[in-house]
């Protein structure tokens, strides 16, 4: 007999922090909250973490530092040196940035993050659907989130109360919405994604050390086709399209593109099919209310140029954990206190994402002819500037030989 009253499958009725969703954002928030001494519960609807995968699985090394996670050969499948970008005429441009990245195995990655959080003391409740936030009126007569109503794995509805709820419930977030925060997306800001994991691909070994990006309004309207390699002949080959610009489904565009490139795919085998929505619109301006903070994809914290969201989710998770601790020390879970989360996040990342939105608008205004022309005008450094939204003012001048592109740059990149 031990003195422990709780095992892995028993839960208390009240926690300091309840986190909804055990993706990269949720588990980093759980790790940090537990490390800060907060009694932490993670509610996850899936029976197994990391699956189904809805992601290209690329992660820049810089994000790993920000998230305070170390290289791990179990989930860092392949280091990527940079990117090869193909305009519609396929005259490619190779980019070798200083910062490297990895293509990861998300199924293992998510489990490892949960293990780390668990070792710090966070508890996980799997196969449990968070139905809605508990919203009550506080002393000031305002709405305040006080916990979560779940349907557990025995089909029972049950309440768990918390001082603070962190909604890390991804692109199909329900919790913030149930508390009255509007996190829905207009369709123009939601790219439709489809992806095959393939093996026995016919790329060169050197090519497989880069991520590959194919651009063109015909092949992928409003988005791009990608290949992210997990091994020299294994890759995620996927597509993102902007539905209002598209005539077919993401899968149909990708299938057509694959059939047009037998040089890569003739001997390949599909080992997994994945789909997903990529929220490319502006982040939620105020991702908090009394008792609630919203992080990651659920708050649209996604890079609007390449659609990556894992890094932003983990970064915002760390800020949310810091502010949760502060609020709990103060015993004040009001929107006023939690707004510091939003302020720090906007300063660190949000404003940059807003600038990158300009680049997205510029990119979406370009015709295939413009994209081919652009390839002749710009080089590696300019592409890196565009992706980071740095030095945007220089572009109008750079395009002066191509008035049409210059006009579009003048309209969007300021």
């Amino acid at each position: 007999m031990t003195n422990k009253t709780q095992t892995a499958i028993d839960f208390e009725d009240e926690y300091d922090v309840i986190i909804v969703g055990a993706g990269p954002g949720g588990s980093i928030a759980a790790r940090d909250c537990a490390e800060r001494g907060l009694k932490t519960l993670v509610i996850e609807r899936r029976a197994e973490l990391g699956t189904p995968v809805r992601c290209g699985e690329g992660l820049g090394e810089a994000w790993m530092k920000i998230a305070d996670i170390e290289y791990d050969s179990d989930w860092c499948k392949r280091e990527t040196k940079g990117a090869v970008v193909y305009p519609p005429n396929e005259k490619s441009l190779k980019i070798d940035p200083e910062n490297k990245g990895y293509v990861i195995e998300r199924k293992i990655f998510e489990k490892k993050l949960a293990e780390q959080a668990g070792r710090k003391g966070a508890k996980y409740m799997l196969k449990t659907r968070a139905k809605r936030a508990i919203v009550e009126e506080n002393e000031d007569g305002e709405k305040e989130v006080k916990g979560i109503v779940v349907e557990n794995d025995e089909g029972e509805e049950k309440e768990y109360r918390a001082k603070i709820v962190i909604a890390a419930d991804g692109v199909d977030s329900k919790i913030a919405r149930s508390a009255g925060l509007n996190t829905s997306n207009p369709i123009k800001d939601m790219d439709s994604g489809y992806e095959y994991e393939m093996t026995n691909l016919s790329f060169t070994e050197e090519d497989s050390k880069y991520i590959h990006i194919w651009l063109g309004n015909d092949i992928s309207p409003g988005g791009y086709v990608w290949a992210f390699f997990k091994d020299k002949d294994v890759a995620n080959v996927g597509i993102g399209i902007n539905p209002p610009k598209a005539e077919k489904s993401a899968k149909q565009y990708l299938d057509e593109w694959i059939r047009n490139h037998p040089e890569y795919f003739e001997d390949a085998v599909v080992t997994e099919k994945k789909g997903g929505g990529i929220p490319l619109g502006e982040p939620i301006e105020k991702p908090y209310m009394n008792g609630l903070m919203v992080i990651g994809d659920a708050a649209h914290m996604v890079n609007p140029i390449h659609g990556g969201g894992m890094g932003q989710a983990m970064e915002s998770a760390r800020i949310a954990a810091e502010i949760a601790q502060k609020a709990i020390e103060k015993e004040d879970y009001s929107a006023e206190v939690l707004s510091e989360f939003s302020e720090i996040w906007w300063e660190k990342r949000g404003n940059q994402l807003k600038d990158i939105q300009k680049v997205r608008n510029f990119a979406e205004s370009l015709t295939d002819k413009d994209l081919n022309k652009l390839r002749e005008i710009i080089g590696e450094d300019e592409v890196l500037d565009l992706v980071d939204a740095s030095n945007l003012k220089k572009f109008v001048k750079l395009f002066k030989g191509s008035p049409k592109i210059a006009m579009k740059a003048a309209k969007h990149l300021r």
Partner: protein
Amino acid sequence: MSLELNQEKCLACGGCVSLCPKDALEIKNGELTINHDKCVKCGTCVKFCPVKALKINK
């Protein structure tokens, strides 16, 4: 008229859920579900679906 889901095609990716203006879609037990009482058949989810798993039956 009703929104019809082909569960065999659906990858339960959840991209359609936040697009729904009436909050009529949800992933439950790993599967997409439609609340037909809330659905107004606007077709936004149909337009989005990467694999054409949704359609409006006329």
